């Protein structure tokens, strides 16, 4: 026996078998995940399909899936699933401009949870967005503050960004800047890069409004770099528009037009037609002002493009 064991190849084989047995034992020792009922799983699948449909821009399909998820979760009294379905529905309605329906959905979710619930921050954040769209900045600010307070995780920077933006819209520039900077420091994780860009863009807006043009330009450039890296067309166009406004503030309309033209190219190729039309109208206004001051008029082809896009005769 010892002779056999002394053989190197046999020892290697025994070692491999022992290692495999150990590996097998370690795999079986893990705690199995809690089993979910078939209905619960189905509700989750509907919700996941809704999220995927919305990502593909199929909002009606997404809303159907969320409704189905809501219905199934309601049938098994799964409050968490119900709240998720309602928040998702509200978000889809809001992103499609149906503020009334969005408010109705998020209004249904609120009574179902308490401020200590892990989902409370998401609900308050959504409510702040909806209130901002209704024009009630005070209520929006209140809900954004609640969202910030309730969130201690990675999304706290995102909540803070929204609060800073609302404060800026309310005209409270100093508080907005301090919150935006706080948000910038919170949004340093890789997963929150898009929010970091949002913080920088907002800072750029605030600094431009305070005529701190150099700081603003730096902020916009940094935001632009991040948004380009992330490939977010709308955000890139927003950064370029910020830079264009900054150029206008610096009495450099030609530079502003160049930024706007870049923004137009990005928006039109990114499928954001309303954004592209908006940019074109801005270019048109600058050209008109220039022509009043004796500068060459808007080239005919460019003007026609503007008119076609805006649908004016």
């Amino acid at each position: 026996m010892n002779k056999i064991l002394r053989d190197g190849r046999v020892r290697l084989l025994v070692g491999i078998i022992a290692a495999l047995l150990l590996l097998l034992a370690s795999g079986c020792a893990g705690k199995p995940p809690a089993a979910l009922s078939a209905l619960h799983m189905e509700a989750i699948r509907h919700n996941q399909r809704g999220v995927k449909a919305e990502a593909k821009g199929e909002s009606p399909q997404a809303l159907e899936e969320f409704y189905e998820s809501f219905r199934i979760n309601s049938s098994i009294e799964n409050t968490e699933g119900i709240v998720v379905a309602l928040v998702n529905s509200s978000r889809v309605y809001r992103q499609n401009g149906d503020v009334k329906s969005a408010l109705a959905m998020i209004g249904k979710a609120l009574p179902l949870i308490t401020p200590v619930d892990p989902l409370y921050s998401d609900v308050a954040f959504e409510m702040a967005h909806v209130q901002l769209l209704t024009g009630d900045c005070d209520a929006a600010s209140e809900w954004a503050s609640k969202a910030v307070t309730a969130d201690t995780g990675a999304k706290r920077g995102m909540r803070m960004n929204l609060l800073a933006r609302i404060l800026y819209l309310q005209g409270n520039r100093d508080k907005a800047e301090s919150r935006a900077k706080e948000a910038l420091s919170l949004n340093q994780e890789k997963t929150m890069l898009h929010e970091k860009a949002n913080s920088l863009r907002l800072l750029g807006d605030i600094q431009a409004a305070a005529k701190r043009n150099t700081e603003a330009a730096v902020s916009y450039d940094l935001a632009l770099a991040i948004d380009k890296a992330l490939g977010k067309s709308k955000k890139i166009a927003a950064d370029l528009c910020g830079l264009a406004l900054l150029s206008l503030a610096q009495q450099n309309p030609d530079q502003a037009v160049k930024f706007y033209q870049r923004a137009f190219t990005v928006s039109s190729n990114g499928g954001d037609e309303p954004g592209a039309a908006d940019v074109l109208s801005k270019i048109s206004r600058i050209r008109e002002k220039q022509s009043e001051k004796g500068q060459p008029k808007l080239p005919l082809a460019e003007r026609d493009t503007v008119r076609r896009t805006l649908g004016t005769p």
Partner: protein
Amino acid sequence: MITEEDRRFKHLEKKIGFFVAIAIAGFLAVIVFIGMDNDLFTPKYRLKFTVEKGTGFSRGMPVKLSGFRIGRINSISLNEMARVDIEIQVGKAYQKWIKKDSVVKLVKEGLVGDSIIEVSVGTHNAEVLKDGAVITFEKTKGLEEVANDLADQVKPVLIEVKDIIGYVNDPNGDIKQSMKNIRKLTADLHSTREKVDALLTDSKQHVGRLTAGTEMLLKNTGDKINAIAPVLEKVDRSMTTVEQHLPQLLEKAATTMDHLDKTSRNLEKISGTVAPRVPVLLNSADGTLQGADTVVDALKDTWPLKNHVPVPRERELVPGDSNE
């Protein structure tokens, strides 16, 4: 000396006596005449009646029978019942006509004449009323009552008339509107007439042109018919060709239809065989899929795959952004 033997004084006493006698005779004649006029010398008898009101009656008021005055009202007095008792005096000569069924009435002689008491003649067989008897008073309507009655009867008529006038005068009513329409129609008729006149004038000119046009059209049609003739010949030739080939074509079509019929019969036969098996196959496929699902689920729960299968996330939210 002057003597009393003047001739003018002879028989003076006689003359004075004569004149006095004439005066006394005249005076007596006047008295008699007045007495006769007031029936002082006529034998009379009294009759009585009672009325509600004494209005219109007066002492001395004439009592007439068939238009002749036969007496007067002798007295008017208020009795215990607050009614008015009236006593009349009537000449005895007329008593034969005033009987138990006679009645007295207070009437006016004409529309504006004096009021009188009129007694009606009794029937032939009735008993004659004696002195102090009560005669029946028949109330007649006064002018005011007659007027009121008349007013009551006329009032609804007047209201009707007022309504009719109001209806006729209503600017939005049917009659006014009809009148307005008639006026408009009349005005329109004038313009219509003018248009009709103009139309007739135009028509005369057009008929001339139309006639000329029709003639030209007929000529053109004749030309076209002449031109169509060769085409029709071609069509005729084509039809002959079609007639020659049609039987063959029909035969081919019939053969094709036969083939189609056979094919459809075969299909029917096949579907008849296959159709009952389709639900079974579907059920089987469903079962197979469920089995596969079960196997996949089982595999998911098996080490080492279970460590790589993502745990379903309840809290999957649509991605949000602070600057949407």
